[in-house]
Protein backbone atom coordinates (compact mmCIF):
# COMPACT_ATOMS: atom_id res chain seq x y z
CA UNK A 1 0.00 0.00 0.00
CA UNK A 2 2.79 2.40 0.93
CA UNK A 3 5.58 0.67 -0.99
CA UNK A 4 6.69 3.76 -2.85
CA UNK A 5 6.15 6.50 -0.31
CA UNK A 6 5.46 6.61 3.40
CA UNK A 7 2.67 8.98 4.48
CA UNK A 8 3.68 11.53 7.11
CA UNK A 9 1.57 9.92 9.78
CA UNK A 10 3.43 6.61 9.36
CA UNK A 11 6.30 8.16 11.34
CA UNK A 12 3.93 9.18 14.11
CA UNK A 13 2.39 5.72 14.34
CA UNK A 14 5.75 3.92 14.25
CA UNK A 15 7.15 6.33 16.83
CA UNK A 16 4.25 5.62 19.18
CA UNK A 17 4.63 1.88 18.61
CA UNK A 18 8.35 2.03 19.38
CA UNK A 19 7.55 4.03 22.49
CA UNK A 20 5.03 1.40 23.52
CA UNK A 21 7.64 -1.29 23.02
CA UNK A 22 10.48 0.38 24.88
CA UNK A 23 8.91 2.71 27.47
CA UNK A 24 7.61 -0.04 29.80
CA UNK A 25 11.08 -1.61 29.86
CA UNK A 26 12.72 1.75 30.42
CA UNK A 27 10.37 2.35 33.32
CA UNK A 28 11.22 -1.09 34.72
CA UNK A 29 14.89 -0.14 34.52
CA UNK A 30 14.29 3.13 36.39
CA UNK A 31 12.28 1.25 39.00
CA UNK A 32 15.15 -1.17 39.49
CA UNK A 33 17.50 1.75 40.21
CA UNK A 34 15.23 3.29 42.81
CA UNK A 35 16.31 2.18 46.30
CA UNK A 36 13.15 3.56 47.89
CA UNK A 37 11.14 1.59 45.36
CA UNK A 38 7.56 2.08 44.75
CA UNK A 39 7.25 5.75 44.03
CA UNK A 40 5.94 6.26 40.56
CA UNK A 41 7.29 9.74 40.03
CA UNK A 42 10.75 8.55 40.98
CA UNK A 43 12.49 9.82 44.08
CA UNK A 44 15.44 11.13 42.11
CA UNK A 45 17.81 8.86 44.00
CA UNK A 46 19.49 6.16 42.00
CA UNK A 47 21.64 3.31 43.20
CA UNK A 48 22.50 -0.26 42.43
CA UNK A 49 21.33 -1.40 45.86
CA UNK A 50 18.49 -3.47 44.44
CA UNK A 51 20.84 -5.31 42.12
CA UNK A 52 23.25 -6.04 44.95
CA UNK A 53 20.50 -7.33 47.18
CA UNK A 54 18.98 -9.52 44.45
CA UNK A 55 22.35 -11.02 43.54
CA UNK A 56 23.85 -11.42 47.00
CA UNK A 57 21.02 -11.62 49.53
CA UNK A 58 18.61 -13.88 47.67
CA UNK A 59 19.22 -17.16 45.92
CA UNK A 60 19.03 -15.53 42.50
CA UNK A 61 22.68 -16.27 41.74
CA UNK A 62 21.98 -19.95 42.35
CA UNK A 63 18.98 -19.71 40.01
CA UNK A 64 21.15 -18.29 37.27
CA UNK A 65 23.49 -21.25 37.66
CA UNK A 66 20.53 -23.68 37.62
CA UNK A 67 19.10 -22.12 34.48
CA UNK A 68 22.43 -22.05 32.68
CA UNK A 69 23.17 -25.70 33.49
CA UNK A 70 19.70 -26.87 32.47
CA UNK A 71 19.74 -24.75 29.31
CA UNK A 72 23.16 -25.98 28.17
CA UNK A 73 22.30 -29.63 28.76
CA UNK A 74 18.97 -29.17 26.97
CA UNK A 75 20.68 -27.56 23.99
CA UNK A 76 23.19 -30.40 23.84
CA UNK A 77 20.59 -33.19 24.09
CA UNK A 78 18.18 -31.52 21.67
CA UNK A 79 20.81 -30.83 19.02
CA UNK A 80 22.27 -34.34 19.28
CA UNK A 81 18.97 -36.20 18.99
CA UNK A 82 17.60 -33.79 16.39
CA UNK A 83 20.70 -33.97 14.19
CA UNK A 84 20.72 -37.79 14.21
CA UNK A 85 17.02 -37.89 13.36
CA UNK A 86 17.29 -35.14 10.77
CA UNK A 87 20.18 -36.97 9.09
CA UNK A 88 18.02 -40.09 8.79
CA UNK A 89 15.04 -38.12 7.48
CA UNK A 90 17.14 -36.17 5.02
CA UNK A 91 19.62 -38.74 3.66
CA UNK A 92 17.73 -42.05 3.72
CA UNK A 93 14.61 -43.14 1.93
CA UNK A 94 12.66 -45.50 4.12
CA UNK A 95 9.15 -46.63 4.76
CA UNK A 96 7.07 -44.33 6.96
CA UNK A 97 9.39 -41.35 6.63
CA UNK A 98 6.75 -38.74 5.90
CA UNK A 99 4.36 -40.23 8.45
CA UNK A 100 7.04 -39.93 11.12
CA UNK A 101 7.63 -36.29 10.20
CA UNK A 102 3.90 -35.50 10.43
CA UNK A 103 3.59 -37.28 13.79
CA UNK A 104 6.53 -35.18 14.99
CA UNK A 105 4.75 -32.06 13.83
CA UNK A 106 1.60 -33.09 15.70
CA UNK A 107 3.66 -33.82 18.80
CA UNK A 108 5.11 -30.32 18.63
CA UNK A 109 1.61 -28.92 18.84
CA UNK A 110 0.73 -30.70 22.05
CA UNK A 111 -0.28 -28.09 24.60
CA UNK A 112 2.16 -28.10 27.54
CA UNK A 113 -0.63 -27.55 30.00
CA UNK A 114 -2.42 -30.76 28.95
CA UNK A 115 0.48 -33.05 29.79
CA UNK A 116 1.69 -31.39 32.99
CA UNK A 117 -0.45 -33.51 35.31
CA UNK A 118 0.63 -36.88 33.82
CA UNK A 119 4.23 -35.64 33.68
CA UNK A 120 4.12 -34.61 37.31
CA UNK A 121 2.76 -38.02 38.30
CA UNK A 122 5.43 -39.73 36.22
CA UNK A 123 8.23 -37.62 37.66
CA UNK A 124 6.98 -38.24 41.18
CA UNK A 125 6.92 -41.98 40.60
CA UNK A 126 10.46 -41.95 39.21
CA UNK A 127 11.58 -39.64 42.03
CA UNK A 128 12.78 -37.08 39.53
CA UNK A 129 10.90 -34.06 40.90
CA UNK A 130 13.17 -31.12 41.68
CA UNK A 131 16.11 -32.43 39.67
CA UNK A 132 17.99 -31.01 36.71
CA UNK A 133 17.35 -34.27 34.85
CA UNK A 134 13.58 -34.00 34.65
CA UNK A 135 13.78 -30.42 33.40
CA UNK A 136 16.36 -31.34 30.77
CA UNK A 137 14.33 -34.34 29.60
CA UNK A 138 11.04 -32.47 29.38
CA UNK A 139 12.51 -29.38 27.72
CA UNK A 140 14.38 -31.57 25.24
CA UNK A 141 11.21 -33.44 24.33
CA UNK A 142 9.48 -30.12 23.91
CA UNK A 143 12.04 -28.63 21.59
CA UNK A 144 12.93 -31.75 19.64
CA UNK A 145 10.16 -31.84 17.00
CA UNK A 146 10.59 -28.25 15.88
CA UNK A 147 14.37 -28.48 15.98
CA UNK A 148 14.36 -31.73 14.01
CA UNK A 149 12.20 -30.13 11.30
CA UNK A 150 14.45 -27.08 11.22
CA UNK A 151 17.67 -29.07 10.98
CA UNK A 152 16.20 -31.39 8.38
CA UNK A 153 15.22 -28.56 6.08
CA UNK A 154 18.67 -27.11 6.62
CA UNK A 155 20.28 -30.45 5.78
CA UNK A 156 18.13 -30.78 2.67
CA UNK A 157 19.74 -27.59 1.41
CA UNK A 158 23.22 -29.15 1.61
CA UNK A 159 23.89 -31.00 -1.65
CA UNK A 160 24.60 -34.71 -1.04
CA UNK A 161 27.17 -34.97 -3.87
CA UNK A 162 30.11 -34.11 -1.63
CA UNK A 163 29.25 -36.89 0.78
CA UNK A 164 28.80 -39.34 -2.06
CA UNK A 165 32.23 -38.43 -3.35
CA UNK A 166 33.69 -39.02 0.11
CA UNK A 167 31.96 -42.40 0.34
CA UNK A 168 33.38 -43.38 -3.05
CA UNK A 169 36.81 -42.38 -1.81
CA UNK A 170 36.46 -44.88 1.01
CA UNK A 171 35.20 -42.67 3.80
CA UNK A 172 32.73 -44.31 6.19
CA UNK A 173 29.23 -42.88 6.53
CA UNK A 174 30.05 -41.59 10.00
CA UNK A 175 33.30 -40.12 8.69
CA UNK A 176 31.47 -38.36 5.87
CA UNK A 177 28.97 -37.00 8.35
CA UNK A 178 31.55 -35.56 10.73
CA UNK A 179 33.93 -34.25 8.06
CA UNK A 180 31.50 -32.95 5.48
CA UNK A 181 27.94 -32.52 6.74
CA UNK A 182 28.61 -31.21 10.22
CA UNK A 183 30.83 -28.25 9.20
CA UNK A 184 28.23 -27.10 6.68
CA UNK A 185 25.50 -27.55 9.24
CA UNK A 186 27.16 -25.32 11.84
CA UNK A 187 25.18 -22.09 11.17
CA UNK A 188 21.92 -24.05 11.35
CA UNK A 189 22.98 -25.65 14.61
CA UNK A 190 23.88 -22.26 16.10
CA UNK A 191 20.45 -20.90 15.16
CA UNK A 192 18.61 -23.94 16.51
CA UNK A 193 20.71 -23.96 19.69
CA UNK A 194 19.98 -20.30 20.27
CA UNK A 195 16.24 -20.87 19.95
CA UNK A 196 16.38 -23.77 22.42
CA UNK A 197 18.54 -21.85 24.90
CA UNK A 198 16.22 -18.85 24.94
CA UNK A 199 13.20 -21.14 25.27
CA UNK A 200 14.64 -22.75 28.40
CA UNK A 201 15.69 -19.40 29.78
CA UNK A 202 12.18 -18.00 29.47
CA UNK A 203 10.15 -21.13 30.30
CA UNK A 204 8.04 -20.91 33.42
CA UNK A 205 5.10 -23.25 33.77
CA UNK A 206 6.94 -26.56 33.38
CA UNK A 207 9.71 -25.38 35.68
CA UNK A 208 7.36 -24.16 38.40
CA UNK A 209 5.42 -27.43 38.28
CA UNK A 210 8.32 -29.88 38.29
CA UNK A 211 11.06 -28.01 40.17
CA UNK A 212 9.68 -25.46 42.60
CA UNK A 213 11.84 -26.48 45.57
CA UNK A 214 13.79 -23.50 46.81
CA UNK A 215 17.28 -24.47 45.68
CA UNK A 216 16.23 -25.97 42.33
CA UNK A 217 14.32 -23.06 40.81
CA UNK A 218 15.06 -21.54 37.43
CA UNK A 219 15.38 -17.76 37.07
CA UNK A 220 11.79 -17.28 35.91
CA UNK A 221 10.47 -19.33 38.83
CA UNK A 222 12.73 -17.51 41.26
CA UNK A 223 11.40 -14.16 40.03
CA UNK A 224 7.84 -15.30 40.60
CA UNK A 225 8.58 -16.58 44.10
CA UNK A 226 10.40 -13.38 44.97
CA UNK A 227 6.96 -11.87 45.45
CA UNK A 228 5.96 -14.44 48.07
CA UNK A 229 9.37 -14.97 49.68
CA UNK A 230 10.34 -11.35 50.18
CA UNK A 231 7.04 -9.52 49.92
CA UNK A 232 6.06 -7.06 47.25
CA UNK A 233 9.39 -5.33 46.77
CA UNK A 234 9.01 -4.06 43.24
CA UNK A 235 12.42 -2.40 43.08
CA UNK A 236 14.17 -5.69 43.67
CA UNK A 237 11.82 -7.65 41.44
CA UNK A 238 12.50 -5.10 38.70
CA UNK A 239 16.25 -5.54 39.19
CA UNK A 240 15.87 -9.30 38.96
CA UNK A 241 13.72 -8.98 35.85
CA UNK A 242 16.26 -6.70 34.15
CA UNK A 243 19.10 -9.11 34.95
CA UNK A 244 17.07 -12.02 33.62
CA UNK A 245 16.41 -10.28 30.31
CA UNK A 246 20.10 -9.56 29.66
CA UNK A 247 21.41 -13.03 28.65
CA UNK A 248 18.83 -13.74 25.92
CA UNK A 249 19.07 -10.16 24.65
CA UNK A 250 22.87 -10.41 24.47
CA UNK A 251 22.72 -13.76 22.70
CA UNK A 252 20.33 -12.38 20.11
CA UNK A 253 22.44 -9.29 19.63
CA UNK A 254 25.67 -11.22 19.08
CA UNK A 255 24.22 -14.12 17.14
CA UNK A 256 21.64 -12.16 15.12
CA UNK A 257 23.54 -12.59 11.88
CA UNK A 258 24.03 -16.35 12.38
CA UNK A 259 20.40 -16.69 13.38
CA UNK A 260 19.05 -15.00 10.28
CA UNK A 261 21.58 -16.75 8.07
CA UNK A 262 20.86 -20.13 9.64
CA UNK A 263 17.11 -19.79 9.51
CA UNK A 264 16.89 -18.41 6.00
CA UNK A 265 19.33 -20.98 4.60
CA UNK A 266 17.24 -23.68 6.23
CA UNK A 267 13.97 -22.34 4.93
CA UNK A 268 15.00 -22.01 1.30
CA UNK A 269 15.25 -25.45 -0.18
Amino acid at each position, binding site marked *: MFRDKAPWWAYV*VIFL*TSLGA*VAPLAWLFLLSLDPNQGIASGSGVYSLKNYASVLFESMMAQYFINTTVVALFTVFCTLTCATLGAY*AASRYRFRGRETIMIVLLLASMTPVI*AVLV*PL*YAMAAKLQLLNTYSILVIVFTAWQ*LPGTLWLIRSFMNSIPPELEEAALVDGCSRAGAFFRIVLPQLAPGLVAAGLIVFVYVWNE*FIIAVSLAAQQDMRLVSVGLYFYLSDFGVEWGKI*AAGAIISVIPPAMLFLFLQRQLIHGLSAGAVK
Partner: protein
Amino acid sequence: MNTIVSRASPYLLLTPAALIIFAITLYPIVNLFWIAFHGTNYFQIGAFNGGANFLSLFNASGMRSFMATAIFVIASDILALSLAIFLALLLEAPLRSRGLLRTIVMVPWLVSQVVTALLWQAMLDSNFGPLAHLAQVMFGMSFAPLGDEVGAMASMVVANVWRSYPFALVLMLAALQSIPSEMYEAARIDGATRWQELRYISLPMAGQTALVVLILLTFEYLTLVTIPFIMTSGGPNEATYLLSLRVWREAFTNYHFGYSAATGVVVFCLNLVLALVYIRKFAIKGGADVQR
Protein backbone atom coordinates in the same frame (compact mmCIF):
# COMPACT_ATOMS: atom_id res chain seq x y z
CA MET B 1 23.77 -58.66 6.89
CA ASN B 2 24.98 -55.43 5.45
CA THR B 3 21.64 -54.61 3.90
CA ILE B 4 19.83 -55.32 7.16
CA VAL B 5 22.07 -52.85 8.95
CA SER B 6 21.71 -50.14 6.34
CA ARG B 7 17.95 -50.66 6.20
CA ALA B 8 17.68 -50.42 9.97
CA SER B 9 20.00 -47.46 10.36
CA PRO B 10 17.54 -44.63 9.59
CA TYR B 11 15.24 -46.07 12.21
CA LEU B 12 18.13 -46.39 14.66
CA LEU B 13 19.11 -42.78 14.05
CA LEU B 14 15.54 -41.65 14.74
CA THR B 15 15.23 -43.78 17.89
CA PRO B 16 16.57 -41.37 20.52
CA ALA B 17 14.32 -38.55 19.33
CA ALA B 18 11.32 -40.85 18.99
CA LEU B 19 11.79 -42.34 22.46
CA ILE B 20 12.00 -39.00 24.22
CA ILE B 21 9.07 -37.52 22.33
CA PHE B 22 7.00 -40.64 22.91
CA ALA B 23 7.76 -40.72 26.64
CA ILE B 24 7.23 -37.02 27.29
CA THR B 25 4.41 -36.00 24.95
CA LEU B 26 2.53 -38.91 23.40
CA TYR B 27 2.41 -41.28 26.37
CA PRO B 28 1.33 -38.57 28.84
CA ILE B 29 -1.55 -37.69 26.54
CA VAL B 30 -2.86 -41.23 26.65
CA ASN B 31 -2.35 -41.07 30.40
CA LEU B 32 -4.26 -37.78 30.50
CA PHE B 33 -7.32 -39.39 28.92
CA TRP B 34 -7.00 -42.33 31.33
CA ILE B 35 -6.91 -40.07 34.39
CA ALA B 36 -9.76 -37.94 33.03
CA PHE B 37 -12.15 -40.89 33.09
CA HIS B 38 -11.19 -42.17 36.54
CA GLY B 39 -11.85 -41.06 40.08
CA THR B 40 -8.74 -39.68 41.77
CA ASN B 41 -7.62 -39.10 45.30
CA TYR B 42 -4.37 -37.11 45.18
CA PHE B 43 -2.12 -39.40 43.14
CA GLN B 44 -4.22 -42.50 43.61
CA ILE B 45 -6.16 -43.26 40.48
CA GLY B 46 -9.36 -45.03 41.41
CA ALA B 47 -12.16 -46.67 39.50
CA PHE B 48 -13.58 -45.71 36.13
CA ASN B 49 -16.22 -43.08 36.75
CA GLY B 50 -17.55 -42.36 33.30
CA GLY B 51 -17.63 -38.66 32.53
CA ALA B 52 -18.07 -37.54 36.13
CA ASN B 53 -14.88 -35.48 36.07
CA PHE B 54 -16.17 -33.54 33.09
CA LEU B 55 -19.25 -32.51 35.03
CA SER B 56 -16.98 -30.29 37.15
CA LEU B 57 -16.66 -28.14 34.03
CA PHE B 58 -20.36 -27.76 33.45
CA ASN B 59 -21.27 -25.59 36.39
CA ALA B 60 -21.27 -21.83 36.82
CA SER B 61 -17.53 -21.69 37.51
CA GLY B 62 -16.67 -23.93 34.57
CA MET B 63 -18.79 -21.79 32.27
CA ARG B 64 -16.96 -18.69 33.47
CA SER B 65 -13.72 -20.35 32.39
CA PHE B 66 -15.07 -21.08 28.92
CA MET B 67 -16.28 -17.50 28.62
CA ALA B 68 -13.04 -16.04 29.94
CA THR B 69 -10.99 -18.16 27.53
CA ALA B 70 -13.19 -17.21 24.58
CA ILE B 71 -12.97 -13.50 25.40
CA PHE B 72 -9.23 -13.65 26.04
CA VAL B 73 -8.39 -15.60 22.88
CA ILE B 74 -10.68 -13.67 20.54
CA ALA B 75 -9.73 -10.24 21.87
CA SER B 76 -6.01 -11.07 21.77
CA ASP B 77 -6.30 -12.55 18.28
CA ILE B 78 -8.12 -9.56 16.84
CA LEU B 79 -5.82 -7.04 18.47
CA ALA B 80 -2.56 -8.85 17.66
CA LEU B 81 -3.43 -9.68 14.08
CA SER B 82 -4.81 -6.27 13.13
CA LEU B 83 -1.85 -4.53 14.77
CA ALA B 84 0.52 -6.86 12.92
CA ILE B 85 -1.10 -6.26 9.53
CA PHE B 86 -1.40 -2.51 10.00
CA LEU B 87 2.19 -2.08 11.19
CA ALA B 88 3.52 -4.46 8.52
CA LEU B 89 1.92 -2.22 5.86
CA LEU B 90 3.61 0.82 7.40
CA LEU B 91 6.99 -0.83 7.96
CA GLU B 92 7.03 -1.95 4.37
CA ALA B 93 7.13 1.68 3.29
CA PRO B 94 10.56 3.21 2.56
CA LEU B 95 10.90 4.89 5.97
CA ARG B 96 14.07 6.59 7.07
CA SER B 97 16.17 4.21 9.25
CA ARG B 98 13.65 1.46 8.66
CA GLY B 99 15.95 -1.33 9.87
CA LEU B 100 16.40 0.29 13.27
CA LEU B 101 12.68 0.95 13.62
CA ARG B 102 11.89 -2.65 12.78
CA THR B 103 14.30 -3.84 15.46
CA ILE B 104 12.89 -1.52 18.13
CA VAL B 105 9.33 -2.60 17.42
CA MET B 106 10.44 -6.22 17.91
CA VAL B 107 11.92 -5.70 21.38
CA PRO B 108 8.99 -7.04 23.48
CA TRP B 109 9.35 -10.36 21.73
CA LEU B 110 12.59 -10.98 23.63
CA VAL B 111 10.94 -10.47 26.99
CA SER B 112 9.76 -13.62 28.73
CA GLN B 113 6.15 -14.16 29.75
CA VAL B 114 7.12 -14.01 33.41
CA VAL B 115 8.80 -10.63 33.05
CA THR B 116 5.92 -9.40 30.88
CA ALA B 117 3.40 -10.35 33.54
CA LEU B 118 5.42 -8.83 36.40
CA LEU B 119 6.13 -5.70 34.37
CA TRP B 120 2.48 -5.03 33.55
CA GLN B 121 1.37 -5.94 37.04
CA ALA B 122 3.74 -3.28 38.36
CA MET B 123 2.78 -0.73 35.68
CA LEU B 124 -0.91 -1.15 36.48
CA ASP B 125 -0.48 -1.22 40.24
CA SER B 126 -3.09 0.99 41.85
CA ASN B 127 -0.72 2.48 44.46
CA PHE B 128 2.53 3.32 42.78
CA GLY B 129 2.12 2.38 39.11
CA PRO B 130 2.88 5.20 36.68
CA LEU B 131 -0.53 4.91 35.04
CA ALA B 132 -2.34 5.21 38.38
CA HIS B 133 -0.11 8.18 39.17
CA LEU B 134 -0.97 9.81 35.86
CA ALA B 135 -4.69 9.24 36.34
CA GLN B 136 -4.43 10.76 39.81
CA VAL B 137 -2.50 13.83 38.74
CA MET B 138 -4.31 14.58 35.50
CA PHE B 139 -7.87 13.54 36.18
CA GLY B 140 -7.97 13.12 39.96
CA MET B 141 -9.23 9.59 39.46
CA SER B 142 -8.10 6.38 41.01
CA PHE B 143 -6.97 3.69 38.61
CA ALA B 144 -7.04 0.05 39.66
CA PRO B 145 -7.64 -2.05 36.55
CA LEU B 146 -6.55 -5.32 38.15
CA GLY B 147 -9.20 -4.89 40.79
CA ASP B 148 -12.28 -5.16 38.59
CA GLU B 149 -13.44 -7.89 36.27
CA VAL B 150 -13.39 -6.07 32.95
CA GLY B 151 -10.20 -4.18 33.79
CA ALA B 152 -8.33 -7.33 34.76
CA MET B 153 -9.25 -9.07 31.53
CA ALA B 154 -8.33 -5.99 29.49
CA SER B 155 -4.98 -5.68 31.30
CA MET B 156 -4.19 -9.30 30.60
CA VAL B 157 -5.04 -8.94 26.91
CA VAL B 158 -2.87 -5.82 26.65
CA ALA B 159 0.12 -7.49 28.34
CA ASN B 160 -0.31 -10.59 26.21
CA VAL B 161 -0.61 -8.73 22.93
CA TRP B 162 2.30 -6.45 23.83
CA ARG B 163 4.60 -9.44 24.05
CA SER B 164 3.22 -11.65 21.30
CA TYR B 165 2.25 -9.47 18.33
CA PRO B 166 5.81 -8.81 17.08
CA PHE B 167 5.99 -12.45 16.06
CA ALA B 168 2.88 -12.00 13.91
CA LEU B 169 4.35 -8.77 12.56
CA VAL B 170 7.51 -10.52 11.31
CA LEU B 171 5.52 -13.12 9.43
CA MET B 172 3.13 -10.54 7.92
CA LEU B 173 6.01 -8.33 6.85
CA ALA B 174 7.70 -11.29 5.16
CA ALA B 175 4.44 -12.13 3.37
CA LEU B 176 3.96 -8.55 2.11
CA GLN B 177 7.55 -8.35 0.91
CA SER B 178 7.20 -11.52 -1.11
CA ILE B 179 4.45 -9.99 -3.29
CA PRO B 180 6.05 -9.26 -6.69
CA SER B 181 6.18 -5.53 -7.37
CA GLU B 182 5.01 -6.11 -10.98
CA MET B 183 1.52 -6.61 -9.61
CA TYR B 184 1.52 -3.17 -8.08
CA GLU B 185 2.98 -1.63 -11.21
CA ALA B 186 0.31 -3.23 -13.36
CA ALA B 187 -2.38 -1.99 -11.00
CA ARG B 188 -0.85 1.49 -11.02
CA ILE B 189 -0.97 1.57 -14.83
CA ASP B 190 -4.61 0.57 -14.71
CA GLY B 191 -5.22 3.52 -12.43
CA ALA B 192 -5.76 1.70 -9.14
CA THR B 193 -5.91 3.80 -6.00
CA ARG B 194 -3.90 2.94 -2.88
CA TRP B 195 -7.00 1.59 -1.25
CA GLN B 196 -7.71 -0.66 -4.24
CA GLU B 197 -4.10 -1.90 -4.16
CA LEU B 198 -4.60 -2.87 -0.54
CA ARG B 199 -8.00 -4.40 -1.12
CA TYR B 200 -7.23 -6.34 -4.30
CA ILE B 201 -3.49 -7.11 -4.07
CA SER B 202 -1.92 -6.88 -0.60
CA LEU B 203 -4.66 -8.42 1.48
CA PRO B 204 -5.53 -11.34 -0.84
CA MET B 205 -1.86 -12.15 -1.44
CA ALA B 206 -1.00 -12.05 2.26
CA GLY B 207 -4.25 -13.70 3.29
CA GLN B 208 -2.85 -17.21 3.46
CA THR B 209 -0.08 -16.09 5.81
CA ALA B 210 -2.60 -14.16 7.91
CA LEU B 211 -4.55 -17.37 8.37
CA VAL B 212 -1.43 -19.30 9.42
CA VAL B 213 -0.54 -16.53 11.84
CA LEU B 214 -4.06 -16.57 13.22
CA ILE B 215 -3.89 -20.31 13.90
CA LEU B 216 -0.45 -20.08 15.51
CA LEU B 217 -1.56 -17.18 17.71
CA THR B 218 -4.74 -19.00 18.72
CA PHE B 219 -2.61 -21.99 19.72
CA GLU B 220 -0.45 -19.87 21.92
CA TYR B 221 -3.33 -18.00 23.53
CA LEU B 222 -5.49 -21.07 24.19
CA THR B 223 -2.76 -22.74 26.20
CA LEU B 224 -1.25 -19.69 27.83
CA VAL B 225 -0.91 -20.07 31.59
CA THR B 226 1.96 -17.93 32.74
CA ILE B 227 0.42 -14.49 32.26
CA PRO B 228 -2.90 -15.11 34.10
CA PHE B 229 -1.01 -17.23 36.67
CA ILE B 230 1.17 -14.29 37.69
CA MET B 231 -0.87 -11.21 36.82
CA THR B 232 -4.32 -12.07 38.15
CA SER B 233 -4.32 -15.67 39.46
CA GLY B 234 -7.69 -15.96 37.76
CA GLY B 235 -9.31 -13.18 39.75
CA PRO B 236 -11.14 -11.06 40.55
CA ASN B 237 -14.19 -13.24 40.98
CA GLU B 238 -12.85 -15.79 38.46
CA ALA B 239 -13.16 -13.24 35.65
CA THR B 240 -9.76 -14.25 34.25
CA TYR B 241 -9.82 -17.91 35.29
CA LEU B 242 -8.88 -19.27 31.85
CA LEU B 243 -9.33 -22.97 31.05
CA SER B 244 -5.57 -23.47 30.89
CA LEU B 245 -5.12 -21.90 34.32
CA ARG B 246 -7.95 -24.08 35.61
CA VAL B 247 -6.04 -27.18 34.47
CA TRP B 248 -3.06 -26.07 36.52
CA ARG B 249 -4.90 -24.98 39.63
CA GLU B 250 -7.22 -27.99 39.83
CA ALA B 251 -4.10 -30.18 39.87
CA PHE B 252 -1.50 -28.22 41.80
CA THR B 253 -3.63 -26.07 44.11
CA ASN B 254 -6.77 -28.13 44.70
CA TYR B 255 -5.25 -31.60 44.11
CA HIS B 256 -8.24 -32.67 41.97
CA PHE B 257 -6.19 -34.53 39.40
CA GLY B 258 -9.29 -35.98 37.77
CA TYR B 259 -10.94 -32.57 37.23
CA SER B 260 -7.67 -31.17 35.99
CA ALA B 261 -7.22 -34.00 33.51
CA ALA B 262 -10.80 -33.60 32.25
CA THR B 263 -10.19 -29.90 31.61
CA GLY B 264 -6.87 -30.81 30.03
CA VAL B 265 -8.68 -33.15 27.64
CA VAL B 266 -10.97 -30.30 26.58
CA VAL B 267 -8.02 -27.96 25.95
CA PHE B 268 -6.17 -30.71 24.12
CA CYS B 269 -9.12 -31.43 21.81
CA LEU B 270 -9.58 -27.75 20.97
CA ASN B 271 -5.91 -27.67 20.03
CA LEU B 272 -6.04 -30.88 18.06
CA VAL B 273 -8.75 -29.48 15.80
CA LEU B 274 -6.59 -26.43 15.10
CA ALA B 275 -3.49 -28.58 14.59
CA LEU B 276 -5.19 -30.82 12.05
CA VAL B 277 -6.54 -27.86 10.09
CA TYR B 278 -3.10 -26.30 10.15
CA ILE B 279 -1.24 -29.42 9.06
CA ARG B 280 -3.67 -30.31 6.30
CA LYS B 281 -3.79 -26.82 4.89
CA PHE B 282 -0.25 -25.59 5.15
CA ALA B 283 2.39 -27.69 6.77
CA ILE B 284 2.45 -30.57 4.32
CA LYS B 285 3.46 -28.27 1.49
CA GLY B 286 5.95 -25.95 3.12
CA GLY B 287 6.89 -27.58 6.40
CA ALA B 288 9.84 -25.33 7.11
CA ASP B 289 7.89 -22.43 8.54
CA VAL B 290 6.22 -24.24 11.41
CA GLN B 291 8.77 -22.94 13.90
CA ARG B 292 6.97 -21.06 16.59
